[in-house]
């Protein structure tokens, strides 16, 4: 079932997403055949554009075939939006070419940094939540959006370090989004992991986000730190979505309303059919929230 904004009873006035409001799956090469065979009305796909920053070959051909059948979203990991280095011009140019070629319905990035003095760390590193950093992020996101010619969503980070900050994370991100004219991508799994690791209230975090700013939701699985166990969760995307994250998804959908929900899986990749059962559960959560809204 494809849910439209009319059916959901609530449009998102400030952030008109062009993705279908249904559940999607993070596309891995292992899923290409399954993805091509699946009903296009019930699913969309998201990729890291960095994995397609190649000059040619089957990888781009596969992505083109998916794009011809399904809605596609780009979720970048390499921009280093919060970094101090100038934007990598090769990366920006490649991203722009991919956007022009594949016309993704949504483009998102992370409210983090990942390079310093030219070196790329292949990880999403946390930003100090200060007003000065907020100003920096606004300027950087404006430049980034101008360079790629698209409005983006920025994703909340996974936090492993607790602390005392000038701003809490929702306030930090919301102000950035409002001033930079971007939207928010709410990663519910990241909120849950951050809550466990740093002691915040995940429900209060989600309720602090203005619904109209949120354009997409992510869910994924995590693993426990081999040393700290349950006290320190790692955002590995290598396990099924945990029950507390499913519960937080319900909180998020109830507060924000129906949004495209992406299921991410990057490690211990199961058969595509196995992932479809989790996809179906996310789809049901979306249908349930639409049903509740119509009754209300």
């Amino acid at each position, binding site marked *: 079932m494809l849910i439209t904004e009319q059916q959901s009873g609530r449009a998102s006035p400030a952030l008109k997403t062009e993705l279908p409001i249904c559940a999607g799956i993070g596309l891995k090469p292992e899923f290409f055949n399954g993805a091509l065979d699946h009903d296009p009305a019930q699913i969309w796909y998201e990729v890291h554009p*960095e*994995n*397609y*920053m*190649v*000059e*040619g*070959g*089957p*990888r781009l*051909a596969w992505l083109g075939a998916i794009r011809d059948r399904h809605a596609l979203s780009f979720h970048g990991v*390499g*921009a*280093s939006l919060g*970094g*101090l280095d100038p934007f*990598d011009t*090769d*990366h920006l140019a*490649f991203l722009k070419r991919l956007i022009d070629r594949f016309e993704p319905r949504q483009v998102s990035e992370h409210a983090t*940094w*990942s*390079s*310093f*003095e*030219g*070196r*790329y*760390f*292949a*990880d999403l*590193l*946390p*930003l*100090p*939540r*200060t007003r*000065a*950093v907020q100003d*920096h992020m606004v300027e950087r996101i404006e430049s980034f959006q101008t360079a790629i010619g698209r409005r983006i969503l920025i994703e909340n980070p996974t936090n*492993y*370090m*607790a*602390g*005392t*900050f*000038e701003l809490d994370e929702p306030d930090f991100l919301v102000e950035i989004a409002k001033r930079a004219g971007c939207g928010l991508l709410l990663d519910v799994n990241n909120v849950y992991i951050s809550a466990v*690791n740093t002691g915040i209230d995940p429900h209060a975090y989600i309720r602090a986000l203005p619904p109209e700013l949120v354009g997409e939701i992510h869910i994924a699985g995590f693993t426990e*730190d081999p040393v*700290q166990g349950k006290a*320190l969760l*790692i955002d590995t995307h290598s396990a099924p979505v945990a029950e507390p994250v499913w519960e937080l998804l319900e909180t998020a959908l109830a507060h924000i309303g129906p949004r495209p929900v992406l299921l991410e899986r990057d490690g211990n990749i199961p058969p595509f059919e196995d992932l479809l059962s989790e996809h179906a559960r996310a789809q049901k959560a979306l249908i349930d929230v639409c049903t509740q809204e119509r009754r209300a």
Partner: protein
Amino acid sequence: MKSYMKAMADSIVGTGPLDVEAFENTGFDPKFVRVYSNNSASALRGALLSNYPSVTTLIGDEYASALARIYRETDRTTRRTLVGYGERFPELIGAHLDKHNLPYLQSFARLDRAWTQAHIAPDSATLVMQDLANIVGAGADLESQTLSLKPDVKLVDLDWPVLGIWSKLRQNEAISEAMELNQNPEQALVWRYQNEVISRSLSAGEFAFITAILQDKPLGEALNLAIVALPDGDVTTLLPKMVEAEIFQPLTGDTDA
């Protein structure tokens, strides 16, 4: 923020003890800062091992991971994509022969690298036999033409004859019997055919021919070099076979009529 980022970067790269003072103004408690180092190492290790699957299969995850760590420490990655990460890994394997004592390992690494290069190379139009027939039909001198390999075609000059084993490893075929490997050079061609990366071993004549093509020698001279390299071989079918393998780009420019 710069001092914090430098401290975090140094922590990830592993250069000395953590600069705790640099975290003080950020509000962060760096107790679990190691998670970021672990995540970064894991991402780079995963990318390297996936780009060198035959090497990983041969020496196992644990030892491949140890080599990946050495590579990460010596390679200052700047590209924002990990597609093709590990460009210099074959050289690193060659430089650490005393540690792994597997002299043939570098040859496997070079083939893995060639596979990746072929896989992501730019798309290109293909020369077909009819193109050559058209040149002859137009009265041009075919032997004076200069052919160009497609961007995905990689010539790999190996120190050990491992192409057959490598192909089986890439296709997840079991190698059940003990195999004796003697150090003899082998020349391999790795390229994209019908959007799949394939490979084949080259005869001495074929290798001389492809090398001459890479050196922009005219077709006639390239064929003569193939004859010299393989005097008892049949080079009459060499060009048609290579054209059918779809390794050449279409001819450009004026023909020498």
